């Protein structure tokens, strides 16, 4: 069972190490990780996908809350949130395949952000399954390189993750 956690932390050096170190020493597994500053420059937000049952999730959240630099930990439920990843995929093309690749990109509402004589860079955003799907389709043309961000997530509707702890 995968859970997506939104973790608001102090925007200070060393905080990522504290969070990542906690996962490794408590034997929790990070599936993906994304970090960036929030609307408040003193606060960063980490989105961490962790796998485990409810007991593990509860321990992860409690242990994270014990870190002094962690301000708030929230579980973002998948069905009531917007989840996005971004991927850059360098696809090998020639004159015969370029058009077909561009068609796939269109269907996925992805973008071509670099055009070379033998390759294209495709930029795609979406949830995990969408990115998996386009990667799968592009593979037949030869994926030369791929980079994916970790997932970021936000609750739908009025619900917000704020810095007020608890």
């Amino acid at each position: 069972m995968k859970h997506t956690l939104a973790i608001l932390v102090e925007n200070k050096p060393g905080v990522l190490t504290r969070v990542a170190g906690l996962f490794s020493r408590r034997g929790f597994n990070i599936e993906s990780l994304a970090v960036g500053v929030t609307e408040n420059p003193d606060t960063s937000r980490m989105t961490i996908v962790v796998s485990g049952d409810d007991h593990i999730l509860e321990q992860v959240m409690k242990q994270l809350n014990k870190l002094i630099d962690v301000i708030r930990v929230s579980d973002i439920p998948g069905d009531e949130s917007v989840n996005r990843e971004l991927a850059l995929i360098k696809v090998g093309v020639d004159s015969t395949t370029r058009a077909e690749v561009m068609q796939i990109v269109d269907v996925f509402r992805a973008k071509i952000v670099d055009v070379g004589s033998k390759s294209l860079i495709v930029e795609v955003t979406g949830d995990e399954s969408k990115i998996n799907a386009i990667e799968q389709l592009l593979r037949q043309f030869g994926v030369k390189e791929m980079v994916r961000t970790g997932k970021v997530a936000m609750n739908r509707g009025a619900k917000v993750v704020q810095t007020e702890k608890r």
Partner: protein
Amino acid sequence: MTKPKMSGAKAIIESLYREKVEVIFGYPGGAVLPLYDELYDSDIRHILVRHEQAAAHAADGYSRATGKAGVCLATSGPGATNLVTGIATAYMDSVPVIAITGQVPRSLIGYDAFQEANITGITLPITKHNYLVQDSKDIPVIIKEAFYIAQTGRPGPVLIDVPKDTQSEIMEFEYPAEIKMRGYKPTYTGNEQQVKKAASLILKAEKPVLYVGGGIIISNATEELRSLAESIMAPVTTTLMGMGAFPSGHPLSLGMLGMHGTRYANYAVQESDLIIAIGVRFDDRVTGKISAFAPNARIIHLDIDPAEIGKNVRVDLPIVGDAKNILKTLLKYVRQEQVRTEAWTRKIEAWKKEYPLTYKKDNLLRPQFVVEQISETCPDAIIVTEVGQNQMWAAQYFNYKNPRTFISSGGLGTMGYGFPASMGAKVGRPESTVIDIAGDGSFQMNSQELATVVQNDIPVIVAILNNGFLGMVRQWQELFFNKRFSATCLEGSVDFVKLAEAYGALGLRVTKKSDVKDAIMEAVKSERPTIIDFVVEKQENVSPMVPAGAAINEILDLE
């Protein structure tokens, strides 16, 4: 008002004054020279240890004996890494220790400079929090936060790493009036609804057991605990860390539970219908086989650390908060109610009669006898222990009456802890007799501190239960490894009497039962640092014992 200008080193000293620090255990070196230069003029007592590990343990012992934060100080690199065992010990037992380390100058950090070690990285998993000073102007805020974090909520060690150049840098000093930390707000008051539910469970219970630990001592809740036990007539068992939380001689006391607990404590837990767990963490040495722990009981768990709730066992009713606060509230709801535990307390009385803690009473000098004699001769002493058999006998056979009179490395099980910790305890409570109940193995891990206690006139007594073995390991080899005593014989150890004398301490040797009391009296009267070498029966084992992985009622008596 203009803020006074001073060096970062001076700012550290000023900040320590504000935190009412009276003593620092430390060892100088290159990266803390500016700080030691300021210490030279200060009123803070500095005790020069002979190994930094001892500084950390001494600060820890000082803290456990007094309830105040203990402070240790070391230089960068090896000085800092030598503190690590002591910091980890304090972390596992929730002790507020402030460790200050020197660091190479900021411009050299990351360049593998001489005596550079990334001590904030190294201590990340064994501190409650740590700091690297990036700018001397941050020193007052960091020190204020460090003391606050160390001493509040579930206490723990905090390390402050101070680059040498920030110590000499001139800054404007202003000690902050308050703390602003968004991510740290410990919960002190328990949820009243939960407390009410706990009260109703307690009043329905027929076989309640109070299982209490170090949390009671940390929150100064011994009186509330006693009131609760007496008003609901429930027996009390303590963990190793909880020795002293409830008087060992009280009729409701079950003594310690777990691996080397009493039979009756373990039986009571296994038959109980309600475990009231306070300030404990269901450690494996306590629970034995976890799936078989207290099979018939509902569990109420009170702890200030929410992460402990449900970590090791399923809990029926959690209450997060300070033990003293919660117990006070709880007492409002359980007082003067009809108790239903009469049959239960009678059953426990019968178990106590049938299965007392005991050992062979013959003419041989047995370690349990030595501990009993210490208990009789110095009933108000602070007992500090090393780790192993000596620790278990000290827990089993001394009659504890008060909190902060049993000081031992429970969680980490650090050999070599006791002697330096006893030094810290004595510095913190000079009016008390402080006795380190030691093994010959553990004592030799930090025996160099004899120089410290002699130089600084810290008259602690080290009672070595000398059996010539690493006794607890040998006990396991005897029971579980076909008596193949691999590397547990300590033949060739020093003559402890001569060792004491070489350092200028008093050394005594006891080989007969009849001499035990006199030797203890002589040590107390001498008011000198003393080693008593009790040459005890080599073969003695700690009994009873729950084998690792067994349920705690599957308890064996050993010869």
